[in-house]
């Protein structure tokens, strides 16, 4: 018998409650939560969907670490003490293990969509080389679990939700900015509205990404460089003065 210490409560109020359940071979944390739901606490609130690490719904903090419940094997955790499961703390609490992540959906709307160049061929198709899209495909692996947002101290500790869109949406912006077909420009928003300067590259987001996207090195730093080149490079500043 293992002890699971689950967060129970509503709208920010709550406490841990202990449940005992068996851990079968190869079980993941979500299996234990389901077993507790089915046998002990039918109204336990838990968000999940595919149970295969592909949809990014069951994000939680397991023993204090941001993880997907469906991909965290119980035998990979210390079993001699209770396993704690609590909701992501960076977003408003709804009930038990479920948080309100709607803020994230609002951020995405603010980022300008793809504006493709004219098709390359008469039949309306484009040509792209695999090596030119490898990086964009890395970013597009994102399952939008928001664990990177959860762990980002700019959001979690400093609550800069108004000023900073967070690592997930910097990755999204990077996927668009580096898309070979894209002709849109998002550099000014990255600097001002999206607050890329708040990121001080502690790489916490990269560490928790279940898809192993190198968020900081491959997405955020190159975008920071674009902002710097545009707005802070002395030569281009000078050129801008002459142009205007």
């Amino acid at each position, binding site marked *: 018998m293992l002890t699971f210490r689950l967060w129970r409560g509503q709208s920010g109020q709550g406490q841990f409650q202990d449940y005992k359940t068996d851990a079968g071979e190869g079980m993941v944390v979500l299996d234990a939560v389901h077993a507790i739901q089915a046998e002990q606490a*039918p109204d336990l609130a838990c968000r999940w969907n595919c149970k295969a690490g592909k949809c990014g719904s069951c994000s939680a903090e397991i023993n204090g670490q941001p993880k997907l419940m469906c991909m965290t094997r119980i035998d990979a955790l210390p079993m001699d003490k209770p396993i704690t499961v609590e909701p992501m703390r960076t977003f408003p609490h709804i009930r038990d293990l479920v948080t309100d992540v709607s803020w994230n959906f609002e951020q995405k709307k603010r980022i300008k969509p793809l504006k493709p160049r004219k098709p390359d061929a008469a039949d309306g198709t484009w040509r792209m080389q695999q090596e030119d899209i490898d990086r964009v495909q890395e970013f597009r692996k994102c399952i939008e679990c928001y664990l990177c947002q959860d762990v980002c101290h700019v959001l979690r500790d400093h609550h800069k939700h108004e000023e900073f869109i967070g690592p997930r949406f910097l990755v999204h912006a990077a996927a668009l900015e580096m898309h070979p077909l894209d002709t849109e420009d998002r550099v000014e928003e990255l600097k001002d509205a999206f607050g890329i300067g708040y990121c001080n590259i502690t790489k916490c987001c990269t560490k928790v990404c279940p898809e192993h996207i190198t968020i900081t090195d491959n997405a955020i730093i190159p975008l920071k460089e674009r902002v710097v080149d545009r707005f802070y490079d002395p030569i281009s500043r000078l050129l801008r003065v002459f142009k205007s």
Partner: protein
Amino acid sequence: MSQFPIIDTDVLVIGAGGAGLRAAIEASALGSKVAVITKSLLGKAHTVMAEGGMAAAMGNVDDRDNWRVHFADTMRGGQYLNNWRMAELHAKEAPARVQELEGWGAVFDRTKDGRILQRNFGGHRYPRLAHVGDRTGLELIRTLQDHGVHQGLDVYMEHTVVGLLTDSGRVSGAVAYDRERGRFKVFHCKAIVIATGGLGRAFKISSNSWEYTGDGYALAYDAGAALQDLEFIQFHPTGMVWPPSVKGILVTEGVRGEGGVLKNKDGRRFMFDDIPDNYKNQTAKDEEEGWRYTQGDKTANRPPELLTRDHVARCINREVKAGRGSPHGGVFLDIAWIKDKLPNAGDHIKRKLPSMYHQFKQLANLDITTTPMEVGPTTHYTMGGIRVNGDTQMSTLPGLFAAGEAAAGLHGANRLGGNSLSDLIVFGKRAGEFAANFAKEHGAASIDDRQVDAAAAKALAPFERGSSGENPYAVQRDLQDMMQELVGIVRQESEMRDAQERLKALRVRAEKAGIDGNREYNNGWHTAIDLHNLLTVSEAIAMAAAERKESRGAHFREDYPNKSDEFAAFNFVIQKGATGEMTMQRVPIPEMPAELKQVVEENK
């Protein structure tokens, strides 16, 4: 006036997977006001789990491919029970739908000359599946989601529809509640598109997510629309079998497309032992030819591992039952062996099948680049569904449309891998277009408050019974166990009749399901509401499966192991009778036009 808030819209789309989002985008582009309801968060729908790719005869890899071959492949795979008009439209329109995604931001893998790469898949004569590694579904849904949010769709996330509303023989709206707070809302609309996917959660071993509780079928059925072909449930041949908690999770057919082979415990490639007659002249003679096919040799035929899913699943089942299976009750799927053929095979596998590598490493502690996987059949897809018009996707109930897995017709008795994602975008678009047209041509119908109140009261009943009622999770589990055992991959008359009796008993228990607590994000309550849908579709499956006294496609009867001409001529159509009982009739399949017959002939 209704006691609940009313949301007015032109087109209501229920479901936000590939089909729902594509329908919503289309209706919105045509000027309709569109509301989208989804049980989960936006972008989480079951579409994300599709792995291998979307079939479209673009001919980028093999220029012999065209819509005629794709059409013939789809009809052969479906054993000619398909709605041939849908199969024709699908084959013709899929290339344009895939291409369109690229302009919306999808980033498919590329050929050497920079076009969309296509891969081999079961039952497809030529490499036809546009793909992104083994996460094509995620690419599809993210592309549609990101395109859609900039189009002004109203998305109602984590809402569940509990009833459709009708007025004088057409749809007029729907009643839903938000899962977060449990508050009811009435959607007043001119047309509805059902895009709720399938019903895999009626079975114990399933590759489907929790959302797949057959909601769309049951909503349409209860509102008076007809269902068809529900006896055809696809069991995907390769699901994980170990560890127990992940049993059923999908292992993409792409593994076999990239050269993976199936072996029994004696190391024998048993798929060579049983090749159906209608595929004999398209199947490799030996292992060497099969390998050459997977590597793009146009003179080679496909290995028998890439026969249709129904056949491969039955062969695996046979090996396991004959005691030639793997330690945990499956067979071996080996991609690691290609190291004998390719330099850097390990890296190649990781690049081509990244999610599979990841999934086995993390969940089974197994490295697929060095060790064979253990796999076995898992409930995967519903060929049947809401009966629709092939051109418009409108059901038999005016104003009610269906697309994707929720609709029946395209796949007949068995779906080819890769034809699902293309189904979503081809018929999602069509459903959206014709729903928008319907909304324009017909004014709003009126909402009947009695219908609204009845739907809400039924949804709330589990609270009145409280925890002294039946545990909804227990009823769901018993249903899944029963369906798996009696209505699964190999069927027979007596078991089907037994299942029908047991379903009656489960129905009685479900009607006593009770739940404590309040309405806010109460998973037990949600499960209690799902039971009605799961039971309705299970009843329909068992009824149709008992009556189809032959084996065809995904429907295999031990007591009638052969195909019968009698059953080739019609679809089983199920509808709610005048007194609320389930009725079934045989509806003849219209004759195929001469031109299409010729296409089938020339591709035999």
